[in-house]
């Protein structure tokens, strides 16, 4: 759990715009803007005051600006009822919003070479990260993918910020036809990357992690597990993660994550409770074994 206290506020919508295939909403939210660190997200209430929808919707923060005391921008595509409602918001409407939430991307102390890998809307949190890394003198290379050109988020900006920006699309409408993982190894080699940051669907994160581990470089992934509260109390967003003590726990993506060290996430077991996870049927057996080993 991050030690920065999130705040809950009723934030006026400043602007609504379209960025590629995404809706972008900027709200005035000084408390959130000033606390924000890249990789964090907001939890937005949807449906209005009399809404039948109780769970909040989570969106990575794309950008914060000092205007009006502090603004926050997030982007989304329409996936269900909540995002459909959000897509109808207009400037001056109020949004009930909590943030910043979650563990941010850890930043390297030294000016190292960083490759940022994003799939679809997963690219969103990589942009503030890229800016933060640049401010520290890091080299930034982008690898962004999407189903089609319009789903590759913010390609122009990526080109502008980064040393190199490589794109992949399923249909070949932009960059290489294929997936980000098809080109990542080459980028790592050419850029002499020291660290990988990735955000996107689980299967992508899993492959990116494998590649990073192959090169023996640190990998930070930001996961998107279904969330209901975003604040750590509902226990719905769990992912099996190996702790420093070697024990697998069902970690909450919203407060223990969403950013984890890639090699700690048991991607093969996502959507299950691994047999040897803390409190799972096989855990007891294992800990007895450990004790036996220690005793022996």
């Amino acid at each position, binding site marked *: 759990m991050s030690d920065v206290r999130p705040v809950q506020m009723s934030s006026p919508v400043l602007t609504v715009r379209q960025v590629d295939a995404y809706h972008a909403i900027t709200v005035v939210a000084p408390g959130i803007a000033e606390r924000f660190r890249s990789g964090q997200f907001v939890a937005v209430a949807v449906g209005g005051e009399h809404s039948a929808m109780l*769970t909040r919707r989570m969106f990575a923060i794309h950008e914060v600006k000092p205007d009006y005391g502090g603004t926050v921008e997030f982007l989304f595509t329409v996936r269900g009822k909540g995002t459909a409602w959000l897509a109808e918001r207009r400037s001056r409407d109020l949004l009930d919003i909590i943030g910043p939430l979650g563990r941010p991307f850890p930043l390297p102390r030294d000016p190292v070479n960083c490759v940022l890998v994003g799939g679809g809307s997963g690219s969103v949190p990589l942009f503030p990260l890229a800016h933060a890394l640049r401010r520290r003198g890091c080299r930034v290379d982008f690898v962004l993918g999407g189903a089609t050109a319009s789903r590759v988020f913010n390609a122009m900006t990526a080109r502008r910020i980064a040393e190199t920006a490589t794109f992949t699309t399923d249909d070949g409408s932009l960059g290489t036809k294929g997936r980000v993982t098809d080109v990542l190894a080459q980028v790592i080699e050419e850029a002499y990357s020291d660290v990988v940051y990735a955000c996107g669907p689980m299967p992508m994160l899993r492959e990116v992690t494998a590649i990073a581990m192959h090169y023996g470089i640190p990998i930070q992934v930001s996961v998107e597990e279904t969330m*209901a509260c975003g604040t750590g109390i509902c226990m719905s967003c769990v992912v099996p993660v190996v702790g420093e003590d070697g024990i697998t726990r069902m970690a909450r993506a919203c407060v223990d994550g969403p950013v984890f060290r890639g090699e700690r996430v048991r991607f093969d077991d996502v959507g299950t409770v691994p047999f040897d996870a803390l409190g799972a049927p096989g855990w007891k057996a294992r800990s007895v074994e450990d004790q036996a080993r220690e005793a022996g």
Partner: protein
Amino acid sequence: MPLDAETVAETAAMIPDLRVRLGELELANPVVTAAGCAGAGRELARFFDIARIGAVVTKSVTVEPRAGWPAPRIAETPSGVLSTVGLQGPGIDVFVQRDLPWLLSRGARAVVSVAGGSVDEYVTLAQRLSEAPGVTAIEVNLSSPDLSRGGEHFTADPEAAAQVVAAVRETARSDIPVFAKLSPDVADLVALAGKCVAAGADGLALVNTVRGMVIDVDTMRPAVAGGMGGLSGPAIRPIAVACVYQVHAAYPEVPIIGMGGIGTGRDALEFLLAGASAVAVGTALFHDPSACMRVLRELERELIDRGVERVESLIGAAHHGMGGLGVAAG
């Protein structure tokens, strides 16, 4: 200039007395958290001062650590959520060493919910909590699978439920009140409540979630990993109010912690009128992490608007021939 007696009286009348007594247990105000919807208070403490509510009711603690159900664990339903967390938690050792002292250090009152798979496990939990200092009360979550009977909930068999309650009451330190928490999915809630009281429960917590299911029409599979889940939130409020009303009608002297869909001061008031002496806020916290404080403020406002001086005077008032019992003019 000293205030005259009338002004003093008027000013005092403006700040209702929110203290409630649940048998031996006195709370500063009737608003508490619902078990499993507030962890052990740490996450909510980032949003409000947890010492200011009546008590923090913890997530049900088990003897051993539990990993719970795999994801997806939650699905949104109209004005509700369906969940299957499966009692994930670190177990009683970690709770007593880490979570309980932290709660006390924050000045919060700790009502500890316990869940076991057998009478023995409940006894162990009661023992450990009696040895630890600072436990305000124990809430016995009886909607937990009884492993000796093929995983049926303890509440499915009133005898089994009563056995657990009796064992916990016998084991726990005598100055720690024991509340039995029941689910509405039972053949006869009033009878079950009666058995629990006869077995020694100092009070009841009503209600746990209602059995339900959501099918994802895209995957064509149940939306939560457990298949069946527990329904909570405003959707079930009328069901919960009916339970509290019926049980209070049958056992007016038994204190009840009421819950199920409370999200506003008016909702809290509804449960008090039905016969609850305290109210727990659960699912509403997922939407609004400050909901407990807001409910408390709104409840106070409702009392002021009605000229009610003592919140206790409203408990069960919907049962009286006259709705206005204990209500001052206005």
